[in-house]
């Protein structure tokens, strides 16, 4: 029997619209326009890995805010469950969860975003992250299995990379972090390829070859 496939949203396309009941009231995707949004799902409230993830997100919340990013959690639990869980986290772990959480009881949003992977669970959402830009486009997608907690610093790094790309029209190499050299877009014609190495020094590029040149960005 053919396995069920999930309808995955695609990078660069508008994020599927929604109106959702959340712990901060009824929110629509369009309420977040003009800011970056990290929409992330977790399998269930009152579970250990998810609890560590929420604490980790909360601990980096100010860093996200500095970058004009809002966080929005989602699971198929109820609002009452969400409220009880975040109150429990605050009471037992001393961490206040400052961002809203969607109660997607009918799985409408989870299905739109392809958050339920039958190979992992037929009822729970896997650990998805959708990074949505201020224009509402999906810019990055991460999927983690139920058993593996996400690395929030990597999510922050990914946002830094996307924002750097938008601001300076550059790409970022493997393991890039803010302050590291960035990749200059490669030439797209033979003439431009010849030119690239000639102008490298005056442009401040460090080139390994015509297609692999780095440059430092201005401070700040």
């Amino acid at each position, binding site marked *: 029997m053919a396995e069920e496939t999930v309808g995955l949203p695609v990078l660069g396309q508008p994020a599927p619209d929604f109106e959702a009941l959340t712990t*901060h*009231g*009824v*929110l*629509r995707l*369009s*309420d*977040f326009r003009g800011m970056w949004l990290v929409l992330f799902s977790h399998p269930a409230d009152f579970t250990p890995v998810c609890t560590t993830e929420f604490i980790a997100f909360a601990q980096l919340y100010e860093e996200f805010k500095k970058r004009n990013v*809002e966080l929005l959690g989602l699971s198929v639990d109820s609002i009452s469950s969400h409220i009880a869980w975040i109150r429990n986290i605050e009471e037992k772990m001393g961490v206040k969860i400052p961002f809203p959480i969607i109660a997607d009881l009918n799985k409408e949003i989870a299905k739109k975003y392809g958050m339920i992977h039958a190979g992992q669970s037929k009822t729970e959402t896997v650990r998805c992250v959708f990074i949505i830009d201020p224009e509402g486009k999906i810019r990055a997608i991460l999927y983690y299995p139920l058993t593996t907690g996400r690395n929030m610093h990597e999510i922050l790094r990914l946002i830094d990379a996307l924002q750097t790309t938008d601001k300076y029209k550059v790409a970022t190499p493997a393991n890039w972090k803010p302050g590291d050299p960035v990749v200059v877009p490669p030439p797209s014609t033979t003439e431009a390829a010849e030119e690239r190495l000639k102008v490298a020094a005056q442009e401040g590029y460090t080139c390994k070859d015509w297609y692999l040149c780095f440059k430092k960005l201005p401070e700040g």
Partner: protein
Amino acid sequence: MPCISPDGKPTSSGMALLSALKEGSSSPEDIARKTGRPIYLVRSGLRELKIAGYVEEEGDTRYRLTDKGAALLK
């Protein structure tokens, strides 16, 4: 946070948004600056207040108090 309580009256968050409109019409962005609330909560709150009849849209981007909204601030 929800701006309308189950009895149909504005919550404290709702009253904060209404107060920000006391001096005249305003955009959600200006209200967010005035109140210190996140823009997404201001947008959702204004939507709730509009449905409940406390504010109305002025053009595409601004909101103002209705008579019902203004009456609450007297």
